[in-house]
């Protein structure tokens, strides 16, 4: 029987060549890598190290974990690790009836959850072949544009906060709070509205919503402009975002980027204009596009979209017809067997739902396409070669929401 020698435990997992006092060899031999990441870990060159950011980190926009390989301050490689917020929403939707599925998709992009309702509702309406009343369509456009402004103002504040500015987030939260309050007056909820129904919306516009909206619209443009002055004219902000994380149009299209991030790269694709839904064809608005493709362009495109949304809301309020807000539908919905794709232009890009019906009252399969998931894969390529601080700027400019990424 041989005597077992106990190897001293390694005090550090960071450096494979750490000296162990009292051990037989001067350096402990590097262990054989078991996984790909461990192999990468053990083959670090001189001066390089891994930094594990998240899932608890001040600026990862939710529970995202990023493994950053750095050489001093320079980022060599970056690897997002997903799944900390996975709830299996697609599977949950398969075991719920069509009305319940809407509230499961609601909390995906929790800062703009009306879009997460609009996409499945659009898909189910195609399955059911139901015509939405015109007033309900106008109400949907109105509330969605309000929600888009709420999301973009939040983005503006987060962008400043990730670059180290303290004040803009609190200023932009004022606008967001007013919008959220008026939507709460309409829907009864501040964050997860569950307002759209298959064939219409849940309840007509009420007096409190309209009075809050009127008061806000009278000062919205001025407020938003004054918030912008703090950032757009700031040399530090512009210098940190210009020419940072430049995304060219070909790469963007190849990666499946949509929304403001695509339009900032010079591709004027907007679902509201190119694949019109609801009453968007009757409304006048521009699709703000920039050609630079850097973080600043992505920021400015979103700011322009806020102004266009205010323009759309103005038109909607002038043209809204009277009438019912809900189509006549049976209480239990059983669409014909078939498949349908419903998509909306969300504040982050195309938010789509592909639903398959097998004729029962539950969707057979629901596939949710979330733009944040697509955009998150850009963080690595866009940050490589920049500094650690730029990781945050690129992340903020892509504006992912982890609730939608992990589903």
């Amino acid at each position, binding site marked *: 029987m041989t005597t077992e020698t106990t190897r001293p435990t390694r*005090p*550090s997992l960071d450096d494979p060549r750490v000296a162990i006092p009292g051990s037989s060899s001067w350096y402990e031999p590097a262990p054989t890598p078991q996984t790909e990441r461990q192999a990468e870990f053990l083959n670090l060159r001189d001066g390089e*190290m891994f*930094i594990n950011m998240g899932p608890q*980190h*001040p*600026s990862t926009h939710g529970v995202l974990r990023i493994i950053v390989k750095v050489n*001093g*301050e320079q980022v060599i490689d970056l690897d997002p690790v997903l799944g900390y917020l996975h709830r299996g929403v697609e599977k949950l939707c398969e075991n719920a009836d069509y009305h319940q599925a809407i509230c499961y998709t609601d909390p995906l992009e929790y800062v703009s959850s009306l879009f997460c309702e609009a996409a499945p509702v659009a898909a189910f309406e195609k399955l059911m072949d139901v015509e939405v009343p015109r007033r309900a369509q106008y109400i949907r456009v109105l509330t969605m544009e309000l929600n888009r402004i709420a999301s973009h103002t939040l983005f503006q504040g987060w962008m*400043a*906060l*990730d*670059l*180290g*500015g*303290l*004040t803009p987030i*609190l*200023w932009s939260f*004022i606008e967001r709070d007013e919008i959220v309050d008026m939507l709460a007056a309409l829907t009864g909820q501040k964050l997860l509205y569950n307002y759209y129904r298959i064939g219409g919306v849940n309840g007509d516009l009420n007096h409190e919503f309209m009075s809050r909206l009127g008061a806000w619209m009278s000062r919205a443009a001025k407020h938003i402009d004054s918030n912008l002055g*703090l*950032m757009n004219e*700031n040399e*530090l*902000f512009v*210098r*940190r975002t210009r020419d940072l994380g430049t995304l060219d149009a070909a790469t963007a299209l190849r990666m499946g980027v949509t929304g403001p991030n695509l339009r900032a790269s010079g591709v004027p694709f907007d679902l509201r204009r190119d694949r019109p839904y609801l009453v968007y064809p009757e409304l006048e608005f521009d699709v703000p596009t920039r050609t630079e493709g850097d973080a600043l362009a992505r920021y400015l495109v979103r700011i322009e979209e806020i102004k266009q949304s205010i323009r759309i809301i103005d038109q909607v309020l002038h043209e809204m017809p009277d009438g019912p807000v809900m189509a006549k539908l049976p209480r239990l919905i059983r669409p014909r067997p078939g498949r349908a794709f419903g998509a909306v232009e969300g504040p982050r890009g195309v938010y789509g739902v592909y639903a398959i019906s097998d004729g029962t009252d539950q969707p057979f399969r629901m596939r949710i396409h979330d733009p944040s998931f697509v955009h998150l894969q850009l963080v690595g390529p866009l940050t490589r070669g920049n*500094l*650690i*601080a*730029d*990781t*945050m700027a690129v992340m903020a400019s892509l504006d992912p929401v982890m609730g939608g990424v992990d589903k």
Partner: protein
Amino acid sequence: MSGLTTTWARLTPAGRALAVLLPIVVIGGAGTTALLVAFGGAIGATIGANIPIVRFLAASVITFLITVPTAFLLIYMEMKIIALMNLRIGPDRVGPFGAVMSVVHGLKVLMKEDYTPPSVDVPVFTLAPVVVYTASFMTLLVIPFAPALTSMNLELGLLYFFAVGGFGVVGLMMAGWSSFNKYSLLGGIRAAAQAISYEIPLTLSVVGIVILTGSLSLTAIVAAQSGSFLDWFIFRQPLAAIIFFIAITAESNRTPFDNTEADQEIVAGFATEYSGMRFGFFFFAEYVNVFIVSALFSAVFLGGSHAPINLPFHPEINVDLGTLGIGLPLLAGLAPVVGTILCAAPIWLFAPRVRTWQALLGGFLIFGGLSTAAIGVWAVAMLPPVADLLFFLLKTFTLVFIFVWMRGTLPRARIDQLMGFAWKWLLPASLLNIFATAIAVLITG
């Protein structure tokens, strides 16, 4: 034994404190008296022979004691001003307008667990906050609050300031290195790189002033700016003032140069692994630093304790209390009563719904305010150090406000932009400033 414990249990908290403190005071007082009687002469002789050392020790202790309330005041200022800029309310729970909030924060930090993570380098980890805090409060020694209120009037005051102030970064490096944390390491290295880069333009920017005054003593520099506000060095050396301001912002790690503790990037930088009062020392040191660099800026560039304009007339309020004789105690006894009644009378007469005691209380408050203001005016007019200190603190806190304002407004600069700015712009500009000043001095003689 049980009798003793029963007696102890019956005592109130105040009684217990007295029971513990009284013997200590009696025995300690008796011992001290005995010691003084026995060795008093020798002690006095030693002190008399080593006046500079005693003075240095006393000044150090006093500056150390000054820094704590200063830090509390600055923390409260920052909390409240940034809150107002953010359209928030800010601290409002403890004290009037939440003014005692920062003290409560300090006590909270004291009561927290002082945790040392298992993998840290314990001696260095423990020493780092001490080094940082000591470096920051020791620089306060040479600040000339007023000609009569300077702790140490060193001939090499400016040099001492930069040398001792530069020690702070050693503490940050120690904290970053010993914490066994990559965020701390990055923070410490950033601090070192930033401090070394900005130390050079900071030191070079004041060389022009040293040429003009011919002295490194801060008291001499302040004395050279006497006269109207046009004699201040900010108008005679504007380029140096700009360079100096940017450099002290970077030196004290304030926004937009707070890369060492950029919480969006490297969590809390060098302070990531610290908790309790050790973190408190880092936190305090930051605010003490802000106060000290503001004080230095106002001493070097804003005329220190000089008033902005020399008044053409000098108000003299001569109150010779000695001439009153027996009237003085009578006045001291009667004036508050008569003054209170006189101030209360209008309230009582013209506001019939106010009750008598309320009117008297209001009169007392008004009289208190008026007499305090009168004593203040007299002190400013007749006691030069009071007026000097007032002007100095006014300038210093204006600068502190500007620092807080910048923190509320600006985003953070990136580390490469920061370093590039120091080496590519500030360093050549400060050299240019020295050459221009030297040539001007040569030409004008």
